[in-house]
């Protein structure tokens, strides 16, 4: 059942708490992009995707699929898999520990439900999502395939190969999202390898392009509604979600510093206080 924006806000807060507590416990991981994409993925998992954790299989028959192309965003991914019932919430404590199903980057070799494909080496997930979308079309299925890319990740040439492929094969059941936070590990995307007008680039490849505020549930909801309406247009959809790296905690927000490093213990306490507690409770 769809959640109200208020409920989603509370869940997203809990997801951000999970992200921070996971990376701090593991003393490693990628909180920055996880926190910028939290609201978008919370909406996707709770209100948008047609999926059922109880009947999940890797083939994804009769269900929507999600592929995390930016594979380092595992903290937000695993938190949502836990909060939607794919895995026990307490398992989040095993993130990045020896023997865990919750590998640093998504693995399909640990029997982790909800994960369709390995990712981590950047630029590849969109191709896999396009292939899965084509597979669903060949089978006459109506479900969507969703894929989340990073804006930094889009420096990879393969992203643009996938752009060409998905448009050429008219994959209007593919909804890609870019977590457009403007940051990557070495700094601002514009300083590292500026890509110019992302929206114009995707439009030029023949995609439906939607620009939305990735921290406003109203805007997120409208974007997904528009994207789903693109079915039948013969065009794949790219939603460019304007976001802020490290969103939700003042000292982490808007800096690339926490792309791939974690707060100190006293900073964690401060961050959790800023976020506040939720009825869902911590793992």
């Amino acid at each position, binding site marked *: 059942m769809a959640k109200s924006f208020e409920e989603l806000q509370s869940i997203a807060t809990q997801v951000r708490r999970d992200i921070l507590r996971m990376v701090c416990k593991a003393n490693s991981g990628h909180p920055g992009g996880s926190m910028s994409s939290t609201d978008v993925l919370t909406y996707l998992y709770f209100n948008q995707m047609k999926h059922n954790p109880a009947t999940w299989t890797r083939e994804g*028959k009769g269900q929507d*699929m999600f592929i995390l192309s930016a594979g380092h965003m595992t903290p937000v991914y695993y938190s949502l898999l836990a909060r939607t019932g794919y895995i026990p919430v307490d398992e989040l404590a095993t993130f990045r520990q020896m023997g865990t199903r919750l590998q640093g980057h998504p693995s399909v070799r640990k029997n982790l439900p909800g994960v369709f494909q390995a990712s981590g*080496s950047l630029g590849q*997930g969109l*191709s*896999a999502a*396009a*292939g899965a979308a084509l597979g669903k079309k*060949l089978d006459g299925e109506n479900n969507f395939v969703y894929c989340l890319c990073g804006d930094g990740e889009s420096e990879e040439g393969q992203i643009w*190969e996938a752009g060409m492929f998905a448009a050429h094969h008219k994959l209007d059941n593919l909804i890609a999202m870019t977590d457009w936070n403007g940051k990557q590990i070495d700094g601002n995307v514009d300083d590292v390898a500026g890509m110019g007008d992302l929206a114009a680039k995707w439009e030029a490849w023949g995609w439906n392009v939607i620009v939305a505020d990735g921290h406003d549930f109203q805007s997120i909801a409208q974007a997904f509604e528009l994207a789903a309406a693109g079915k039948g247009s013969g065009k794949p959809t790219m939603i460019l979600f304007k976001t802020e790296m490290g969103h939700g905690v003042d000292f982490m927000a808007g800096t690339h510093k926490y792309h791939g490093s974690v707060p100190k213990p006293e900073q964690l306490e401060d961050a959790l206080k800023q976020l506040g507690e939720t009825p869902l409770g911590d793992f």
Partner: protein
Amino acid sequence: MKKYTDTGKKDTRSGFGAGLLEAGRANKNVVALTADLKGSLKMDAFAAEFPERFIQCGIAEANMIGAAAGLALTGKVPFVGSFAEFVTGRVYDQIRQEVSYGNTNVKIASSHAGITLGEDGATHQTMEDMALMRALPGMVVINPCDYNQTKQATLAAAKYVGPVYLRFGRPGVPNFTDENEPFVIGKAIVMNEGKDVTLIATGHTVWEALQAAEALEADGISAEVIDIATIKPLDEEAIVASVQKTGCVVVAEEHNAFGGLGEAVAGVLAAKCPKPVEFVNGGDRFGQSGTPSALMAAYGLDAPHIAEAAKKAISRK
């Protein structure tokens, strides 16, 4: 000694094309992808009969590997085809993550492998591909020797569940194996029994090894010839049993000196049956332009070189 007859030169890639068509008829989930090399990969017949299941990817191999993995997720059995270099070295990381680590049911159809690609020269002639694919955990590596075996290997790959690297070539070569012999992945094929030396070969060098065995027989040397069509998993038992009997071995492959069949066999024998090993391969070199047969001779991969290596191996017993 069993004599093999060349029933007429055929390219192994056409064996792949014929196998793909038959696999497509047997299983509606078989799909084929190529990066602008439909004709070279002999996918035309499949594309004509199953237009919806033929997926043209354009000259974008990295995306093609990922798209194949995505198709495999939904239950399809994708064959991705291009020249050997462009479906290995060019996309090694994509294969590693999307196919091997991702454990997707993707079949990599690798044509124009080795030096016999010929006139296009070194940029297109990979002699490193088997090393790259062997190194990937769980990857099955198959290098059939003629048209008939390539067709059967394609059918076997379509039935096998898991990543497969299927390597074949461009030029017309002798077609001499039984067209009805089913291909068994992981099984060595003893082509000829002998007692003085074992000749282990794969792909195009199998015919050369058979010719070498005939020449050696004329010199009074009895050579056992083994076709290792599956490089990985390697039929260690068959190799050890043969070399225990003959006491020495030559390993011939259309690949360079590193990481291919030669090192694989040497590794097994070092651990289980240390005997003299001689290597027939492309060495530490790139290829160059030339006709396939001229290149096979120039790079020391033909029958006379295998026979010479056999005598050297015997002398080291």
